[in-house]
């Protein structure tokens, strides 16, 4: 799994961010000694660095420049300075992305995933398998025991959200949140219609046991 180094001096943020990223399956290191921060960071051989700007000893810009001298590791600058100048500075010093605090964690995750995917190129999983169902993310089709069905954009999002949380109930609100974060601005009725259609498609393929509705709670892919 990808290894992320967090360079952040605020203890709370460092620890919570660490917990958060670990929960999403990343290996995380968060050095606390800022005297040798550059050496320490490179020693961790990270796949990605989350870098704050306001730091003790050296500021983030300096660290960014120094790391770039030795390594091409992707760097995301995370800072509460939100002026365009700061963004420009970071990019000029070789940072790959720039996010302002307080960030939306979903957006942070999305950016991390995008950058890692770009760097690791080939390792994108474009097919996920659930029981006997093959779900092809790149062309949006599902295959079940030889039969194929095409999914719409909304259905793809719904299925991938339920798949990510398989075995857990996803509330309608959470599902909506997920979809809105992915630029699909569905309303309540639309969501029901989409889920129903998706379920019909899966049933049409012969997959009897698929998305279940838990009244008052949400949906689940068991």
């Amino acid at each position, binding site marked *: 799994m990808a290894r992320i180094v967090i360079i952040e001096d605020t203890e709370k943020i460092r620890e*919570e961010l660490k*917990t958060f990223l670990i929960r999403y399956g990343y290996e995380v290191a968060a050095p606390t000694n800022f005297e040798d921060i550059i050496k320490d960071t490179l020693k961790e051989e990270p796949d990605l660095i989350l870098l704050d700007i306001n730091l003790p000893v050296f500021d983030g810009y300096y660290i960014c420049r120094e790391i770039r001298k030795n390594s091409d590791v992707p760097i995301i600058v995370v800072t*509460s300075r*939100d002026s365009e100048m700061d963004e420009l500075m970071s990019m000029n010093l070789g940072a790959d992305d720039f996010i302002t*605090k*307080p960030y939306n964690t979903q957006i942070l995750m999305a950016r991390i995933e995008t950058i890692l995917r770009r760097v690791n190129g080939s390792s994108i999983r474009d097919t996920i398998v659930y029981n006997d169902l093959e779900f092809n993310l790149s062309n949006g089709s599902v295959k079940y025991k030889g039969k194929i069905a095409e999914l719409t954009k909304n259905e793809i999002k719904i299925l991938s959200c339920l798949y990510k949380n398989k075995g857990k109930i996803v509330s309608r609100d959470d599902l*909506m949140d997920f979809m*809105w974060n992915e*630029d699909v601005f569905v309303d309540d009725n639309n969501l029901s219609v989409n889920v129903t259609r998706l379920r019909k498609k899966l049933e049409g393929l012969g997959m009897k046991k698929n998305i279940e509705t838990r009244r008052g709670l949400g949906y689940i892919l068991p």
Partner: protein
Amino acid sequence: MSMKEYLKDRTIFLLINFILFTVICGIMLLINISTSIIFLIFFIWFFPIFTYITIEFTKQKILYNELNSIMDNLDKKYLLAEIMKEPDHIEGKLLYDLLRQANKEMHEHVKNYRDRENEYREYIETWVHEIKTPIASTRLIIENNQNHITRNIKDEIKKIEEYIEQVLYYSRSNNVSKDYLIKEVSLADLVRSVIKRNSRDFISKGITIDIEGVEGTVYSDAKWLEFILNQLIGNATKYNRERDGRVTIDSVRNENNIILTIEDNGIGILDKDINRVFEKGFTGENGRKFGESTGIGLYLCKKLADQLGLGLVLESDAGEGTKVSIIFPLGGINLMC
């Protein structure tokens, strides 16, 4: 300044001379001095006086005409004393020195206030950046401990963030040049990102959003635009109806402008309030009904829009909905490709 006014100013001096001359003239007539001599004396007496008055008048007139024309052409009128030439006569010199002194004092006085304002602004900026750190950690804590309590806290945190952003833009709104970067902005991207920021409000109130018609790019400052749009969309969701709420965002390209409209079918604004919505601190009937209204949001939007050179127009029918249009003029700084 006319000759008449100038002479009027010297009435007493002239009057005394005339009275004295009349008295002497009377005495001379009594002792039988011939009229030609009296005329000669009149001439000798008054010719220098009038010559002097005429020369002085011309001098003064030239000085004040020059000052007036400088004043008329001057953008910042208070700089008069810096620009005017030092006059070569004593009265003018005295006035010039006094003006310069007063000016200098005034500059120091103004500088004092400017420094104070800048200091305050800098403090606000620092404060805003500092408070973002605890907010960021609060958000992470919420994210790591998700339940309905933290979800409620998350909603409140979002409100706190909006108020903080308002403070930041309020303090920046008086000094646009510092944090201002014009670049190409895609309207669709902008609208999407603001809607995402407000997604909780749309979802929890069940408001439908339609942004299919938004397209095109404009040249402006993305951050400021986002702030304005966030306020407007925030209003559209806040003052919406209980059910079947709908917000439609659309863009129209005209010959010399692009108009971005945000339209809702919410409670609308009363006719008596509509002309005052951009006033600072004005909350109106809706503010009284809904509470949580500061009367700053739209005021700031208007102010920032003015500084960005954008038009901001609000139309509304009470009970029917509200439509706000942001007008991006084509050409100048908002030139479109």
